[in-house]
């Protein structure tokens, strides 16, 4: 185990922001903490880094209790938003900033700096000043700087938020690859669920200062614990239903689900679980197409269901539909249930 957070409580004069947060990060693992702004994710990051003192709870890093330790003695790297490079130092000096003391004798430093710049693909940029770099390059330097002293853990604070979307995707992959290669465990703080799901080994969802669910991206997307989580992690249609324990009846028909107690439930339907047919090929309920958002690789069809509820179906780009058309809707695969009222 690399990082163990045990019942952390932290806050400011105005009151606690984190309530009883516990989280584990395994060796070499990449964990995302996903939350909306104000959920406490920045406070969590600052507390783990040692920049904010928790009111109670313990932070254990590689078996050492670091709860009361100053940030400079924790061996936790930090990659802040927009990099926060030292503007008065060159790229190489930035990367070498943390290489001090007996662990890094002066002679060993240039090679270490070169190796890291090479790792992030900026081998020939060592003499540049930070303001001469693009946004993505700055983030890579910030990552190299954080990794240089071989920390036990790296914290990434929304490092991709300020970049435009095309650059973001490429940089995410690069950062993930660099971290995999260096074998360093990492915690990514983000509000972007696509980012969290696509990058992480595991995701922890933080809401109102509490971790509401932790799991692999697959577990979270398929089996969210509440309706709120289902919607937060992706597009979801929440339908009322009644189950006999293994089959649930909804306005869209009867569907299988993992065994549970019979009774009133809420059914989570993902848009990609809905199939549409314009020529009555299915015998499902009929719906009316309101409008279509076409993305090229697929399209999202906004529908009005018989009961008046609206729904969205994500279908292949090959299906030709026009607003106003009547379609048959079929729900495929087993569904996920959450309790009513969530």
């Amino acid at each position, binding site marked *: 185990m690399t990082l163990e957070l045990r019942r952390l409580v932290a806050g400011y004069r105005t009151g606690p922001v984190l309530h009883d947060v516990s989280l584990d990060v395994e060796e070499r693992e990449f964990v995302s903490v996903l939350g909306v702004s104000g959920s406490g994710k920045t406070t969590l990051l600052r507390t783990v880094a040692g920049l904010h003192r928790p009111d109670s709870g313990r932070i254990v890093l590689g078996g050492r209790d670091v709860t009361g330790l100053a*940030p*400079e003695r924790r061996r936790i790297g930090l990659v*802040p938003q927009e990099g926060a490079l030292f503007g008065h130092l060159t790229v190489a000096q930035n990367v070498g900033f943390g290489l001090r003391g007996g662990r890094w004798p002066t002679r060993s430093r240039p090679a270490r700096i070169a190796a890291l710049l090479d790792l992030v693909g900026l081998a020939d940029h060592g003499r540049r000043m930070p303001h001469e770099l693009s946004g993505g390059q700055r983030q890579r330097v910030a990552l190299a700087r954080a990794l240089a002293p071989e920390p036990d853990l790296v914290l990434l604070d929304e490092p991709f938020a300020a970049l435009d979307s095309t650059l973001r995707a490429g940089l995410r992959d690069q950062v993930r690859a660099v971290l995999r290669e260096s074998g360093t465990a990492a915690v990514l703080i983000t509000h972007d669920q696509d980012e969290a799901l696509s990058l992480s080994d595991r995701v922890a969802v933080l809401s109102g200062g509490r971790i509401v669910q932790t799991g692999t991206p697959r577990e979270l997307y398929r089996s969210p614990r509440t309706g709120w989580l289902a919607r937060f992690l992706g597009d979801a249609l929440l339908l009322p239903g009644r189950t006999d324990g293994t089959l649930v009846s909804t306005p869209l028909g009867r569907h299988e689900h993992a065994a549970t107690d019979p009774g009133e439930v809420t059914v989570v339907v993902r848009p990609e679980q809905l199939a549409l047919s314009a020529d009555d090929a299915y015998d499902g309920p009929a719906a009316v197409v309101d409008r279509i958002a076409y993305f090229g690789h697929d399209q999202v069809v906004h529908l009005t269901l018989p009961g008046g509820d609206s729904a969205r179906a994500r279908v292949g780009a090959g299906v030709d539909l026009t607003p106003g058309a009547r379609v048959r809707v079929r729900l495929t695969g087993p569904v996920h249930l959450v309790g009513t009222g969530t």
Partner: protein
Amino acid sequence: MAAAAAIPLGYLVVRVADAGADRAWQALWRERTWELAVNSAVLVGLVSAGCLVLGVALAWLLTRADLPARRLWWVLASLPLAMPSYVAAFAWLATWPGIHGLWPLTAVMVLACLPYVTLPTMAAFRLADQGLSDVARTLGRGAAGTFLTVTLPQVLPAALAGTLLAALYTLSDFGAVSLFRYEAYTWAVHAAYQGTFDRTLAAVMALVLAVLALLVVLAERAARRRAGRGAVATVRTTAPAAPVRLGRAGTVAALVAMTALAAASLAFPLTVLAGRLAAATRVEIDWAGLGESALSTVTLSTAGALLTVVLALPIAHLAARRRTRTVAALEGVSYLGHALPGIVVGLSLVFFSLRVVPGLYQSAAVLCFAYAVLFLPKAIGATRAAVERTPPAVEEVARTLGRSALRTWAGVTLRHAAPGVAAAALLVAVTAMKELPATLLLRPTGVDTLATELWQRTAVGAYGAATPAALALVLVAAVPAWLLSRPERIRR
């Protein structure tokens, strides 16, 4: 407009050249010249070092430490701007007539110049990126190491710019220097002008003084270039830092130190002046004369401020909007006044008006012009920042909505910039009120401002008679200084 700023220095060179190389060399190579230059350099060095160290420490306390009544301390830290150094010097001398020479003078000048360093450094501390300090901590630097390697480089450019102002103020200071009978260069220039009829000597000495001032400017530029690389490109990434808790002992020590500073720079001089005034009521106060001096002080400084702002607006607009080499050069020339001591500008304008426009010699017009030359940089700085507050895109939108370029500028840009322009005018006015050497040389015959009256009375040892003028000056100058120092202005 920028050419106006170059007149004094240019004319001084012409005047010296006219006198002939021999006489100029003769005047320059006196042993006395170098003795005086060394005196000035020592004074400037001590005051600059004192202001830099104290100013950065004070700015840190005022922005980062968790102190009670912060706003009160902010105001107290900026109010010494309203206290002319010679008034403070007068207060010390009036209490202990025996103190003279370098060390008391240094203390008085540091107290007077401290806000020049404290105010910009406070702003820099507030803008300094806390994210950088956080990263440095996670990379293994302690709190002190982080301050030295990361925070200090971020505030140093601002602190150095402030120190430059303090150094130039000290180099060109005339009142305090002559009251403490310290043989600095300004004092000697004035003595050469008044005491002998050898105007060439005065002109040569003024030129040397100008060169000294330019050297200070160049030194600051070099230092700032080295320190200032960090000022570029960093984007602020996190919320402002939480205030540092000093603990009980630390808080008490900080409060005691700041109280002592405020006492020495504000409370003590004001108390002495008030006490003197109470004692002087037995002596007849010349209310009419005092009122007349106050009126001419306000009139002259207001006229000077208006002229300065009118000259500054086009330069500031160009500097904010078009970054070409020509504009940069223009702006650079306008900053000459920054480096030229008041006595140099005063003296050169005496020569200039006598030779070129004799009709204007010793008229209010020449004095206002001198104020404009001296304080143009202050006005440009403030005005330029104000113009930059209007994004060019807003002007472009106004143009697409059918406004002409001129109407856009007047109706949009100037409207936005108005508070900044007003602040620039206030700043110039308060500085002009306190200005002594140029006013002394150029004031219209028979007209006295509060500053010249105070100086004349003190010079002959009439401390009691000088008090009303000193007090009136501080009161008059405190109004615009207070307006400028309101906390919301500092915080911005």
